[in-house]
């Protein structure tokens, strides 16, 4: 009796244990089925981590908000984050891991070198790669599974050149550019667009990549008496070029691109920054209440605005785009694979995103977005115009 009781008890315990295990396993399976994952490969360490970490934080905020609002059709939305160090080799390892271990049907990455390096992996495995922030023109030609949500190079250069000639009424422009691939290419785009818009380029000067003084080219530009100067340099030397231009008595407006759109420029140049015009590919605080709230959240929670604000805006928006495609596939009961994700994303085609507005995927793998022009006025960046293509 005792034995039987004991045996009965023993069987009961085993059954209970088995039931617990079964329910735990099935619960886990349900949880696994219920969660919809995407990958995010960004520099979390190394020289670019300053930007990478802020971009990841922005994306994480978006994922948390989507989950707080009920997830994707009630299912949990998950983000798998891996470090690329902005290094193509490390990026390849990260993306391989995402595909083989985490099995995400789509991943987001940035930095042109990494975007290009991991493209063959995305194409071979039929996994969608979304480039968010890199702007090399050849990103549009990396294969069927590589798309960008960020406008590629030259969009803003064309906008600022056309605006200078047509809206600001400038007839004579000087172009000063760094003598490298990006500088030469963008300077040509500016020259051609400005000329086509009715203006005349009166000086076209390059400076060496290792130059530490810009007096010579600036004196040549001063002698050509332009009404506006377009500077196509790097963030490292552009403030010094502007400083030297002002020191040499050049007072005409200076335009440049998104690289110099930074509060640090005003700090470095003081009054010499007045009249400098930069571009941004995302709306600023003055253009959108949502962006204002977003920046206020950064200041409140992190104690400062994000590094590279426009890029973090794109990163904040990208989980919303992925979630919209997941939701559509899930609703239709279509298996969530890379192939189906791509088809569905192209079917939806236009997405209305919280911080950067509408984005439409064009057939040539590019996107069109308005260009925001900002100007230093009264010691701060202020909105000047919005240029639509």
């Amino acid at each position, binding site marked *: 009796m005792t034995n039987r009781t004991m045996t009965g008890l023993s069987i009961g315990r085993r059954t209970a244990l088995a039931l617990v295990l079964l329910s735990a396993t099935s619960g886990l399976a349900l949880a696994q089925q219920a969660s919809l994952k995407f990958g995010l490969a960004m520099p979390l360490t190394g*020289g670019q981590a300053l930007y990478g970490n802020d971009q990841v934080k922005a994306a994480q905020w978006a994922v948390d908000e989507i989950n707080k609002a009920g997830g994707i059709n009630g299912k949990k939305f998950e983000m798998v984050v891996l470090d690329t160090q902005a290094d193509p080799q490390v990026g390849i390892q990260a993306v391989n891991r995402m595909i083989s271990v985490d099995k995400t049907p789509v991943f987001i990455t940035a930095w042109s070198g990494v975007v290009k390096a991991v493209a063959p992996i995305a194409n071979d495995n039929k996994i969608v790669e979304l480039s968010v922030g890199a702007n090399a023109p050849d990103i549009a030609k990396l294969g069927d599974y590589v798309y960008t949500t960020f406008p590629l190079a030259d969009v803003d250069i064309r906008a600022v050149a056309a605006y200078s000639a047509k809206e600001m009424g400038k007839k004579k422009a000087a172009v000063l550019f760094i003598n490298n691939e990006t500088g030469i290419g963008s300077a040509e785009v500016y020259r051609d667009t400005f000329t086509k818009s009715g203006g005349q380029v009166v000086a076209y000067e390059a400076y060496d990549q*290792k130059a530490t003084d810009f*007096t010579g080219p600036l004196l040549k530009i001063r002698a050509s008496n332009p009404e506006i100067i377009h500077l196509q340099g790097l963030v*490292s030397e552009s403030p010094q070029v502007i400083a030297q231009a002002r*020191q040499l008595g050049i007072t005409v407006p200076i335009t440049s691109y998104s690289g110099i759109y930074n509060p640090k420029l005003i700090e470095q140049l003081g009054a010499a920054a007045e009249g400098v015009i930069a571009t941004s590919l995302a709306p600023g605080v003055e253009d959108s209440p949502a962006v204002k709230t977003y920046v206020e959240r950064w200041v409140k929670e992190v104690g400062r605005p994000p590094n590279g604000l426009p890029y973090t805006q794109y990163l904040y928006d990208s989980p919303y785009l992925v979630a919209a495609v997941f939701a559509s596939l899930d609703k239709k009961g279509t298996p969530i694979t890379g192939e189906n994700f791509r088809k569905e994303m192209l079917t939806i085609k236009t997405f209305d995103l919280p911080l950067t507005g509408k984005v439409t995927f064009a057939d040539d793998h590019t996107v069109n977005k308005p260009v925001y022009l900002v100007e230093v006025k009264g010691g701060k960046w202020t909105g000047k115009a919005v240029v639509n293509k």
Partner: protein
Amino acid sequence: MLNATVISQILWTSLATSSYFVLFALAFALVLKVNKVFNFAQAGMMTCGFYAAYVAVRVVGLPGPAGFIAALAGGAAMAFVLERFGFSVLRHRKASPMFVFIFTLVASQFITYAMTMIFGTWPTTIFASMFWPVTLVADVAVSAWDIPAILATVAVLSGLWAFLRFTRYGQFMIAVADNADLAELYGIRKDRVLMVSMLIAGLICGVGMFLYGTRAQVQPAAATELMLFAVAATILGGIGNLWGAALAAVVLGVVQNSSILFIPSAWQGFLLYAFLFFAIVLFPSGFRLPERSKALKRTVAAPVIAADGKGG
């Protein structure tokens, strides 16, 4: 475009901006002359000098003079580390000059990467503002940075000249530079002299990077690029000729900047390499005046031996 104002402006700005190049060339030439090392790790000394000043001024919030002292300390500290744990160890292990040269390249990259990990790649300056007010002197823009930079460079040059000429250690340095083994026979402690030479080079790098970092933005890899100019000036000035290297740095700066009057500005960098190429091929010993330099050497070397002989 070619008028007196433009030419004067180019000449003046070239002279002012050559100040830091003179200092980098001087530090490089000094270590080459005394320690017999092509010290590409000087880029590390320069980087440490800059970031020490940056931390002192921008992070801790100390005033400019404290930043200047920090730059000197940073440059000298890295020079000490390189000599004590690098060159000295390699000397005692009788490493070949080629191996020492490779060590300097590796050390330079190591320091660059370490600084990148700490400070990132975002370029920065020692002071928050990099804009210096300008005064027009006969239509030539003279910035508030120019004259102090030129004066600081002249002070360093004079100080080094006086140190080498009138101090005991300065004369020991010349003796070691002349013949290290013979100097040791006379009782000069070679290791100590080589350390002093490195420390002076570190201090000079600190001054140079303080000047550079108050005018332009710096990121960890910047010093490696600035080094090229120092190497070019040292070769053009005559290897082992300190004052020749300093003079070559000024001439190179002026010629490179003035070239804008005759060639497209994009070719300015090319000009530096062209100069280097022809200088190495045509004047492998630099543009020195042999008779005069020998005479100078004799007048300096004689009291060194005498002084040391007395000191035992």
